[in-house]
């Protein structure tokens, strides 16, 4: 592990990107006040999650009694949520969607970044603005128009409807453009002298130097897709193809009125995959978003 991370650092340094190792010593003083402060923050921030975990074990009657000890409903709730309501199916659909969207966004953004940084062409500024401004064009405000178009394509109830409209990313293009622009120029020159095509340059040089940025983008996109709600509600009516957030919504009314236990259990289960993705990609994320300030 240590060796690998040192290699990565070496590659980064070779690429001219000097990253500050996390946890540098520029804070002085005792660490116990920090521990106290962090504990306090954690207690406040994790309280909703902890209470959710408690409620997940309780029947509605126990919830309304505000019992502060674990209840008796956990097994029932798991059965309801996992077996009756097919939560696993929804989570699988969301996972497929998230992986496809993330992969597509990464590839498209890499290509766009390559074009923006290593080519000169007329109207580049306009094209870049054209891409960047979509950062401020959320699907939500034009969801009905998008619905009409996507159902015109015949993609209703299909994975394509959940993936293709989100396959391009202004965030990604922006990120890779910054990242590539920060790499030393002689990389491209050397590779041109070697006679490499832009694609060879991308795959041999740029991508190996961009794993951090790719990992960072993956985390954001995974969570973004995982939390998607309004769009799948409209475009997916076949429950077999439905995604997790909409599935969670359906759990509100297992009984007449809100049933808290199963809903909380499902919410906690549903928060596991994004958390895992984050933990797995934490290192690259931390370094990948080190947008440099001007020196």
């Amino acid at each position, binding site marked *: 592990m240590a060796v690998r991370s040192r290699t990565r650092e070496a590659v980064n340094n070779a690429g001219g990107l000097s990253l500050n190792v996390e946890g540098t010593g520029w804070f002085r003083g005792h660490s116990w006040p920090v521990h106290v402060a962090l504990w306090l923050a954690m207690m406040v921030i994790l309280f909703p999650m902890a209470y959710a975990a408690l409620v997940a074990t309780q029947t509605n009657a126990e919830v309304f009694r505000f019992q502060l000890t674990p209840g008796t409903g956990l097994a029932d709730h798991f059965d309801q949520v996992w077996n009756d309501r097919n939560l696993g199916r929804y989570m699988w659909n969301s996972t497929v969607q998230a992986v*496809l969207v993330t992969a597509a966004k990464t590839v498209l953004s890499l290509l766009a970044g390559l074009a923006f940084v290593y080519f000169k062409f007329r109207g580049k500024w306009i094209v870049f603005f054209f891409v960047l401004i979509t950062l401020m064009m959320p699907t939500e405000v034009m969801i009905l128009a998008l619905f009409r178009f996507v159902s015109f*394509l015949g993609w209703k109830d299909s994975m394509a409807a959940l*993936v293709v409209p989100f396959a391009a990313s202004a965030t990604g293009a922006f990120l890779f453009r910054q990242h590539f622009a920060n790499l030393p120029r002689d990389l491209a020159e050397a590779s041109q002298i070697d006679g490499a095509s832009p694609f060879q340059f991308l795959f041999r040089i740029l991508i190996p130097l961009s794993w951090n940025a790719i990992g960072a983008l993956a985390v954001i996109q995974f969570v973004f897709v995982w939390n998607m709600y309004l769009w799948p509600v409209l475009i997916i009516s*076949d*429950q077999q193809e439905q995604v997790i957030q909409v599935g969670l919504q359906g759990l509100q*009314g*297992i009984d007449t009125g809100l049933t808290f236990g199963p809903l909380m259990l499902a919410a906690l289960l549903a928060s596991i995959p994004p958390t895992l993705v984050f933990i797995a990609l934490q290192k690259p994320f931390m370094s990948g978003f080190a947008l440099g300030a001007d020196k």
Partner: protein
Amino acid sequence: MKRILALLLVLAMLAAACGGSDDSADNATDAGDDTTDTTASTDDTAADSGDESDGDSEAAGDAATIEMWIAFSDDARLGFTRDRAADFNELHPEYNVVVTEFDSYNTVFEQAQLAIEDGNPPEIIHFFEAATQEALDAVDGDGNPIFKSVTEAIGDRTEILGEPVVLGDVVSAATKYYTIDGQLYSMPWNTSSTTMFSNMDILNEAGITEPPATWAEVEAACEAIMALPDAPSEGCITWPNHGWFYEQSLGQMGVDLVNNDNGRSGRATEIFLDSPEAIDYIQWWSDLENSGNYVYTGVQRDWDGTSAAFQAQNVAMLIYSSSDTTALTQAGVDNGFEVKSSFMPYNQDIAYEGNLIGGATLWLANGLSETEEDGALAFLNFFSNPENAAAWHQLTGYIPITNSAVALLEEEGWYNESPNSAVASDQLDAAADTPAATGALVGNFVAIRDVVTAAIEDVLVNDVDVAERMASAQAEAQQQLDDYNELFGE
């Protein structure tokens, strides 16, 4: 791979779109829209004819799918529907009824409209009463109605695929509301009314033996209840701020909501939100809140919150939908208090005319093949056959929808065993046969109800003047109705 495929598709579309816009020279935008519609409906026709030939040539093979969209996602009601569908599929192996649930009436309504636009609606759709006018008016891109009248589709048949037709047996309250131009366009299903639920333990403690029947009695009862040393913590009474309660109150006082006999002798073109009676009702409501007796949960259409307050015994009385009679009665048993259901309190100063129904009906898609249509009709009649209708009533508290179901329940002695369950039917039977007590038929009803609940909320929360606020709500609602009629009117 998938991505590349998708991209190729988009590229193909790009080419198609370019080709399309070449045809339409002038009005680029409108023409573009038309192209969309035609293409979509052509696709649809192709798909449909494909289905049909499948059904004809290999009738014994794959079962014809009947899709049914409903607005219930709770275990009990969704489970009931799924079970009946399974029963039907077993009886008729040539059909496969598939139930898809949505979490509210509004969602299913929106989804259905989108599916209709998309040219691919399900065979059976569950619409609430407020969507009736809009469902009647809905047309597809070619101007054909989206739904087919159930009366017309059944014709004079007395049974379909062996299932006896029960449409003619539907109880009068539902028939009265849903009959338009002499026919039932949709098959009545879950039908309820507004009833009151009282926590008799608290009422008795305050020396009240019967639930209050009028506004004045409610006030008196509340005074007694709130004077108790252990008065309920939140207040005396609550009900959701939903347009339906306002409409019920108008019905009780014999006031029409819209012109043309509440929209029943012709298309409604004028709305009367600020009639003196309506203002009286909201003033009474607001006074009850100001005196600390009525509890406003702070959220519009808050069925969950008001019900939870009653179940937690934080209020003594709840005006609610009879749809939850069974659950609320049981909640009393679970939490150790007696629940008694009674008629919705009325204004003692005005002669009582009648309460209305609420709930929803099942609509049949237009343009189905004969096989599909017969299957859907057979299922609709099976779904409300006496046994099923009675079971549905017992499960929920929606009224038994046919007379034979009522007879069956009486025979079983159900009403003696569970007197609360009879209240909604009795209340509806007591209503006069007048437009006011039948309920309004009006377009854009959802938006109009929104205007009403927003105005009432303003009165409850911000204490604005009732008459002034309702006058501005009136203007707003009239605008909504005018807009609707501009698009759908003759």
